């Protein structure tokens, strides 16, 4: 039985037995290479679920839709390892109760689909640890290396050019499971820290704020740069920040549902004497 079929069967069982109220998975999209999220609440619909190498979107963000989990019922969701890490972060940041989430874990290697064993997020810690151990590379490693080798001036103008394209549509924010705030800092206008118009200053402000707010939190699922209508390689900035926090604080985002946020925690034995 293919994994797709196995997961359809499992979804059917869970829905018909009432163990979960909804399954969030992938369905057919507008063309053969596109998958769109589907939300199934009846066992009859499970045949709409698709699982293949085109299923790349991180679906975890849908779980924090207003009110979805407030009835304390369980919801199942199809997730790749990055999505599973996202569940840990959302749980650590109190945005959801990990007990409520039933995971259909999978990974894609080439065009091969691999099932990841487990139901609750804790059961995937081996998978996550092995990603951390494997020193993950950036999505576009070649471009990343090229940027790394640039002088600070060159790098600045590279990003300046990229950010110049930004139209401040905030699709990157909407697509990111970590951007769950009810009011984003860019929407706060008393004072208006981030300039609303899409010119160089405002674009820089926005993209740098985004990078900081995601450092130690981004799981590199790529939702943001796939959503970006002007193709800014956003994930590379986040990858750089991820390397930074891993090197400086041994922090790899989303290893457990009780992981302390890297920018809010401090250790008493920190060698920095300014910490009282």
């Amino acid at each position: 039985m293919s994994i797709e079929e196995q997961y359809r069967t499992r979804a059917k069982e869970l829905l018909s037995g009432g163990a979960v109220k909804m399954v969030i998975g992938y369905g057919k999209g507008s063309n053969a290479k596109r998958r769109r999220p589907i939300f199934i609440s009846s066992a009859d619909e499970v045949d709409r679920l698709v699982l293949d190498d085109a299923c790349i979107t991180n679906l975890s963000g849908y779980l924090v839709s207003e009110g979805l989990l407030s009835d304390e019922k369980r919801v199942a969701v199809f997730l790749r390892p990055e999505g599973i890490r996202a569940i840990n972060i959302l749980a650590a940041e109190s945005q959801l109760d990990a007990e409520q989430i039933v995971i259909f874990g999978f990974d894609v290697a080439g065009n091969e689909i691999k099932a990841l064993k487990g139901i609750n997020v804790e059961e995937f810690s081996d998978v996550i640890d092995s990603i951390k151990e494997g020193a993950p590379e950036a999505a576009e490693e070649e471009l990343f290396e090229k940027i790394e080798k640039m002088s600070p001036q060159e790098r600045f103008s590279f990003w300046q050019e990229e950010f110049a394209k930004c139209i401040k549509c905030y699709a990157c924010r909407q697509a990111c499971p970590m951007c769950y705030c009810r009011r984003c800092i860019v929407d706060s206008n008393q004072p208006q820290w981030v300039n609303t118009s899409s010119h160089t200053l405002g674009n820089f402000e926005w993209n740098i704020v985004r990078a900081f707010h995601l450092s130690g939190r981004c799981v590199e699922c790529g939702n943001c740069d796939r959503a970006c209508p002007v193709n800014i390689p956003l994930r590379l900035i986040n990858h750089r920040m991820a390397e930074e926090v891993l090197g400086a604080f041994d922090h790899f985002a989303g290893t457990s549902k009780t992981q302390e946020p890297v920018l809010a925690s401090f250790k008493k034995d920190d060698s920095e004497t300014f910490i009282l």
Partner: protein
Amino acid sequence: MAKIGVFICHCGENIGAKVDCTKLAAAMGEHPGVAVSVEYKYFCSDPGQESVKRAIRDNNLTGVVVAACSPRMHEATFRKACAEAGLNPYLCEIANIREQCSWVHTDNDQATEKAMDITRSMVEKVKRNNKLQPIEVPVTRRALVIGGGIAGIQAALDIANAGQDVVLVEREPSLGGHMAQLSETFPTLDCSQCIMTPRMVEAAQHPKIRLLTYAEIESVDGYIGNFSVRVRMKSRYVDINKCTGCGDCITKCPAKKISSEFDCGLGKRTAIYTPFAQSVPNIPVIDHANCIYFKNGKCKICSKTCQCDAIDFDMQDTFEDIEVGAIVVATGFQVQNNTMYGEYGYGKYPDVINGLQFERLASASGPTAGKILRPSDGVEPQTVVFIQCAGSRDPSKGVRYCSKICCMYTAKHAMLYAHKVHGGKTHIFYMDIRAAGKGYDEFSRRAIEEDEAAYLRGRVSKVWEENGKLMVRGVDTLLGRPVEIAADMVVLATAIIAQPDAKEFAKTIGIGYDEYGFYNEAHLKLRPVESSTAGVFLAGACQSPKDIPDSVAQASATASKVLALFSKDMLEREPVVATNNEATCAGCWGCVLACPYNAIEQKDILDRSGRIIKRVASVNPGLCQGCGTCVTFCRSNSLDLAGFTERQIFAEVMGL
């Protein structure tokens, strides 16, 4: 409409020599919203403050900017002046054009430019300042004194004698600290035990002092007036309520060969022990690591001997939470381990000892009953060499600073030796003789003139053993020639260092420390007994190396600070606290973790039927110290800090 008054202070030459104050005043006078812009030589002076008050009244000012020195100097001064003129004090801000401008720049024109930027940005901030009212919090009238050396005892007694409650916590089994170990004390040569023991007893019996020995501080939370402290009572294995202090157990304990910490390794003690005969309380403890029963499950001789059934091998550490309003830290010092000076042979030759060991030899209650005898063979040494600054003033191996007391105690040692060993010879290698203090120079002169201490100005390069003698090779720089002395004993005046756990402990109580681990005072000159944390005071050698008179003086000073604090029912606190916008808070609890003062709690927002709609962060204004950490953390920008609101900061930045 804003009517801001700008007051530009010359600070004598401090600002006036670099910043063109007239130009600055003129420029600020042009700035929108500024009603008055004037300069003056010293605004902090009486007439200066009067002119500010007058300007406020005459012009109905809505805000004040004083362009002067750091707000740490005079913010309070000018805010008070504003309040006296009827303006809410939080509508007054300081533009620092001294430390951040005139003192650090050489070019007058550029300094003036910069002073304009700084002042203008403050004017923009003040336009958005809000009236704030001080927060009142109650004061718990009970003090915690940590450390039962002379400093801690003195502070505890002074506070208790003024009628306030004190909890005195000492981590050793007995009160006393280092002073209990000393023989006689400079500059009067009175017996240390004789003046110390009565103090210890007085502290232990004082109705206002609760003494907790063999106890350690686990954690400190809260803030000035309202600290909650968790104390760990280490298990003594002896019930203090049953034990009468007869000491039978100590005599019978078969583990007798344990090196005595109190005698600095020169004497032995048992596994159940009191550090010294006059210990307060006179109740033994069992040394878990060395007790035969704890090692191999057999013995319990002490418990069979005890008439009072006081020994309990099952005793566990217990914890107690106490509420206090003020904390005095009097945790003292340690002497440095001299083994780092391999060339002096400390640790290698038993007759090379340190000053504290010499105190034990000279002490009537010490391991030799006050006779100066060599540790190696118990023979009276005929020639003793003292080496001063063994670790102090030595940036390469030891510490950079002067340990302050070693010159004096070495002179004392030479005298005590001369009094005890007639005909004995002393040689003292020194760098300088630092004898500043009442009666101190006279004291060291006496050592030279009456007790024939031979001072040699120079350093020692090597100590080695030859034919049963300790050969000391050094240089006499005044005569310009090398010297070699055949000695029977060598005494090193070891550096005074911070307690080994001083830095860790500072983090537990939340105070600052210097690179060596000595605790930082709030201001070296003007606030020498306050720590950087409000409500926590420093006494004795934990702040810097000190002798007894200085330790006692500082201890009494902390007591007066504590009593001043306790003289009020309510404390006024700065209203600079964070507030949270519950509508936009995402409930991520990052701020709860980030807040170093545990001031943020989780709060449930319920609907009418009591169901939780939302969980948000909520700042307790009593606990918040206004540090702003949470504000910088919050991604949704929900937190804001009164007095430094985002609107104010934004205006300040844009004003630059």
